[in-house]
């Protein structure tokens, strides 16, 4: 049963990684840019959700109930971080897009530093804590299995979000237009795809999912810090590479897998070495399978 519990813990953390990884992968797909500011958008989401929940001494939870307050925080973070993503594209990426990839990466690092310091300036450098009164704390027992309500909530919401995204990207015409843009934006334009609209959509949805992950992360661990974006960003980036960058199902798989590996490593080897496993995976994948587990399915024919 310990194994099953560890698996659940791994999946929970893996969901955070997967949701963040989706943002990396989508943005990389259409812009060929590793958005280094993405982890900090996740942190921003965590703080925005925190602020909404503690605002007016927990007014949201009192007004809408425990679950209503949580959903309000998630929705608020989803839209606010999505808008922050769109703004980031407009201010920091679009002006330098034509100058090549290096200026884009430098700009992304700049946004990352800006966001991290803004969070510190607004909320302070100390840890902040989601109050226990705004999240469910009880657990249920299924035989020997011990699961918290929060874990179940995180797993269900994450999977719903991932399935929705999977459906949009893989099964709809708009999704096909997104994939086509990622493969050949010039050809997509010729066929009538408004690449600018696709870019805006991606820069809204990617960060918005990160924002949701941020709030859930805060609710799960309850403790948040302004530097959390760096750590989670790096791990989700590893997950993206592990699955195969630019591919939506791959990002989901990479995230979940990384969470599980990390949890099992922490439980059965040593929790102090947790992060080492993550980056060991990154190195191994980069050496032996740089396209990721499910990278490009067919070779490009010339």
């Amino acid at each position, binding site marked *: 049963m310990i194994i099953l519990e560890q698996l659940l813990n791994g999946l929970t953390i893996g969901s955070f990684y997967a949701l963040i990884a989706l943002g990396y992968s989508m943005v990389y797909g259409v812009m060929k840019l590793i958005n280094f500011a993405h982890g900090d958008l996740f942190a921003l989401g965590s703080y925005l959700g925190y602020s909404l929940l503690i605002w007016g001494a927990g007014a949201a939870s009192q007004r809408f109930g425990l679950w209503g307050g949580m959903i309000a925080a998630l929705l608020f973070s989803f839209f606010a971080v999505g808008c922050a993503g769109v703004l980031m594209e407009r201010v920091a990426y679009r002006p330098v897009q034509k100058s090549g990839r290096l200026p884009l990466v430098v700009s992304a690092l700049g946004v990352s530093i800006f966001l991290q310091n803004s969070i510190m300036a607004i909320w302070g450098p100390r840890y902040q804590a989601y109050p226990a009164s705004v999240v469910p704390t009880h657990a249920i027992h299924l035989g020997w299995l011990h699961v918290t309500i929060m874990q179940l909530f995180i797993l269900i919401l994450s999977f719903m979000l991932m399935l929705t995204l999977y459906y949009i990207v893989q099964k709809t*015409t708009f999704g*096909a*237009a997104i*994939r*086509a843009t990622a*493969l*050949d934006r*010039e*050809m*997509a*334009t*010729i*066929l*009538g*795809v*408004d*690449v600018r609209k696709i870019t805006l959509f991606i820069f809204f949805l990617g960060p918005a999912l990160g924002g949701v992950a941020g709030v859930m992360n805060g609710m799960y661990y309850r403790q948040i810090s302004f530097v959390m974006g760096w750590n989670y960003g790096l791990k989700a980036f590893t997950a993206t590479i592990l699955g195969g960058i630019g591919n939506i199902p791959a990002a989901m798989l990479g995230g979940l897998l990384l969470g599980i590996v990390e949890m099992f490593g922490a439980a059965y080897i040593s929790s102090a070495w947790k992060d080492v496993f993550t980056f060991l995976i990154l190195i191994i994948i980069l050496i032996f399978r740089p396209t990721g587990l499910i990278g*490009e*399915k*067919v*070779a*490009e*024919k*010339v």
Partner: protein
Amino acid sequence: MSELLVLENVVVTYGAVQALKDVSLKLYEGQIVAVLGANGAGKSTMLKSISKIVPLQSGKIYYKGKDLSLVPAHELASLGISHVPEGRRVFSTLTVEENLNLGAYGGRERLSQKEVEAEKQWIFELFPVLLERKNQLAGTLSGGEQQMLALGRGLISKPTLLLLDEPSLGLAPILVKEIFNAIRKIHEERGVSILLVEQNAKKALAEAHYAYILETGKISIEGPSSQLANDDRVKAAYLGGSALEKKFENK
């Protein structure tokens, strides 16, 4: 006949290089117009300038009397302009059917789902192999099949004007024949006007009503294609030296 496409003194530059120097061209509704010329003469650039992939330095392009400089590139498809670029450029990790469906993306407001389905059926009749491979990833198709897919993708939106860039490039003679048969059918059965860029001058002249010869970014000769086919300069430069080709034709 009304003018469908007009290029007026078009100049395109890449950095310091002038790719198109003062090119003027007219295409009347219902015509096939061929643009011939050697590699690097600026033929592809000309098509790219029409579909707004490359910007004009100066000059004007009109489509149905409308100045295209005022239309964003992604809206050209909704006006009925379809560009099948050089090198096919199918979306390799999308299925054949997804590729075809995307061809209708720009025309989705002017076409009903039913019309798109009907066009798809017609394309499957034109190229049965696409129906067979409907669910296969486009990257797994052979070169000729990819060319058929690129053509189908360009046709599904029921275009008025088709810009065709080197459709026979790199194909075996039998496939070249098939592609040119398809082009004739597209013109006859659907009344699509075609601007055809080709290196295979003989085949192109056989299909086209009118032709232009492009040499290092300038139009050097123009005229009805039957006249050009008998022009000594054209014969010498573009039709003459292919004894090998004649041998194939005779077989």
